[in-house]
């Protein structure tokens, strides 16, 4: 019964995403496609964060670093490819099929290093050390004057895919939605797998898991790397959407926004953070129309959701416990 409800809710969500360009065309509101592209991109980042936050109880306050790194790989390669200078002897490329996996690999590697060092700690120290790493990335990017420093880096055009025109807003939108759907599906597989069960077991009772023979670092670090790669993918898509990257992508506020999306939508559910990203960005969009002090209204909204539904908006829609 409840499983059925969940299925229909997810299907309805997908249908909304699919129908947006048609509705935007009929209503002559092209900005809807742009808005929903942002929803999809941030949803990928939020879902990635949920993997470690919701299933590993690893409160990473630095996930924006991976978002920024993914974006900057796209920006930096575009920069060198455009002016013909090349990068370390490589002429560069605009091919998404080469560049995007490269960017994701860079983020996974960064996740491996940052995760390995951060996972020596736990609790509040883990929060602070992930935050510290993100701040390091922030100041690194600010200091890279050749790539615009504080001002960021504009990107001339979107990366290319053979046979698909990513420059077209609707085409690009559908690509983002497809990647979001694939990522959500993959993450659901992960949390239901042996690996996912081991990760969740460590969250609930680390002592018991160790006594059973599980090495915590092995599972938590793997989850951290996968999560970093997902956040990196979101950064890649953002750079291609906005055609601009800046150190703002890795501020602690951005990490906090990602966390707010996860909590708002429903922590530890994978689907919830998609809803959370939509609600957060949608509210931000609406409220900034009224006042620049939109956080004054967003704050109480977050508090209400946390108070009345510990499992977030998704938990309000699907009351049954989600066993994943």
């Amino acid at each position: 019964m409840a499983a059925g409800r969940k299925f229909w809710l997810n299907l309805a969500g997908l249908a909304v995403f699919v129908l947006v360009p048609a509705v935007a065309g009929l209503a002559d509101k092209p900005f809807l496609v742009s808005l929903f592209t942002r929803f999809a991109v941030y949803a990928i980042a939020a879902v990635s964060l949920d993997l470690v936050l919701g299933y590993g109880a690893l409160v990473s306050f630095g996930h924006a670093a991976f978002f920024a790194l993914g974006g900057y790989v796209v920006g930096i390669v575009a920069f060198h490819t455009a002016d013909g200078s090349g990068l370390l002897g490589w002429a560069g490329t605009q091919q998404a099929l080469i560049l995007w996996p490269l960017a994701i690999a860079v983020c996974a590697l960064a996740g491996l290093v940052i995760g390995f060092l951060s996972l020596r700690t736990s609790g509040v120290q883990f929060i602070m050390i992930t935050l510290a790493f993100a701040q390091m990335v922030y100041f690194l990017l600010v200091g890279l004057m050749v790539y615009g420093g504080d001002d960021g880096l504009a990107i001339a055009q979107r990366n290319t895919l053979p046979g698909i025109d990513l420059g077209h807003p609707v085409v690009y939108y559908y690509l983002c939605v497809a990647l979001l759907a694939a990522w959500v599906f993959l993450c659901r597989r992960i949390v239901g797998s042996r690996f996912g069960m081991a990760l969740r077991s460590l969250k609930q009772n680390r002592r018991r898991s160790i006594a059973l023979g599980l090495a915590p670092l092995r599972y938590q670090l793997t989850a951290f790397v996968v999560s970093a790669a997902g956040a990196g993918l979101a950064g890649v898509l953002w750079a291609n959407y906005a055609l601009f990257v800046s150190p703002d992508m890795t501020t602690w506020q951005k990490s906090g926004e990602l966390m707010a999306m996860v909590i708002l939508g429903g922590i530890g559910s994978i689907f919830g953070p998609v809803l959370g990203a939509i609600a957060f960005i949608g509210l931000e969009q609406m409220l900034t129309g009224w006042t620049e002090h939109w956080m004054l209204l967003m704050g109480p909204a977050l508090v209400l959701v946390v108070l009345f539904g510990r499992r977030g908006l998704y938990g309000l829609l699907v009351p049954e416990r989600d066993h994943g």
Partner: protein
Amino acid sequence: MAEPPRLELRGLRKAFGAVRVTHDVDLALRAGEVHALIGPNGAGKTTLISQIGGELMPDGGRILLDGHDITRLPAHRRAAAGLARSFQISQIYPEFDVEDNVAMAVQALAPGGLNMWRGARHDARLRTPARAALERVGLAARRQVRAGELAHGEKRQLELAMALALGTSTLLLDEPMAGMSIEESRRMAALLAGLKGRYSILLVEHDMDVVFALADRVTVLVYGEAICTGTPEEVRADARVRAAYLGDG
């Protein structure tokens, strides 16, 4: 005994500051026996178990499991070396259902722990052994209940099921009957009696009736020191034990 001991402690020492909590303890757990570890409160029983389990590192001495030195082996590698344990305070996964709890024990030592694709909740290779273990401890009917909602005694049963599902033959059971009702502990005792011979069990227990009914041998720990090891009859007759323990118990 021709067969070497399953688990052996040799001159194990541990001190917290000036307090010697484990004082040159020698102990041999023979294959197939139930070996009870008793002693008054504060005798250092749980500290000793924690050292065998790897949560505490001893200051000196050796721990041998099936002849291999595991003294410095990290806690998470002791299960693979052949040691399963239950805790004095139930250590379970409250958000998983009962069967998931036991399935975690099954998968812990199985290959494929990093498999991210295949669903674990319908994997017969995990579920069949998990159900078998639940059957053995009498929790089969409760397998779909969230473990956090179990009654206290049921959690103790679940702990035992997880230890059994690990598939090792040496069990370290820290007060498996702690906090149980008389009826529950009577059933647990019957359960443990049924394991005799197939498992080598080091059992920490307070209930003297259980100890004397169940144990093949008993070691008495007083102030960190193993003052006496022998059959229940021998231990009962030992003057030092009567003075130190049974007298004021």
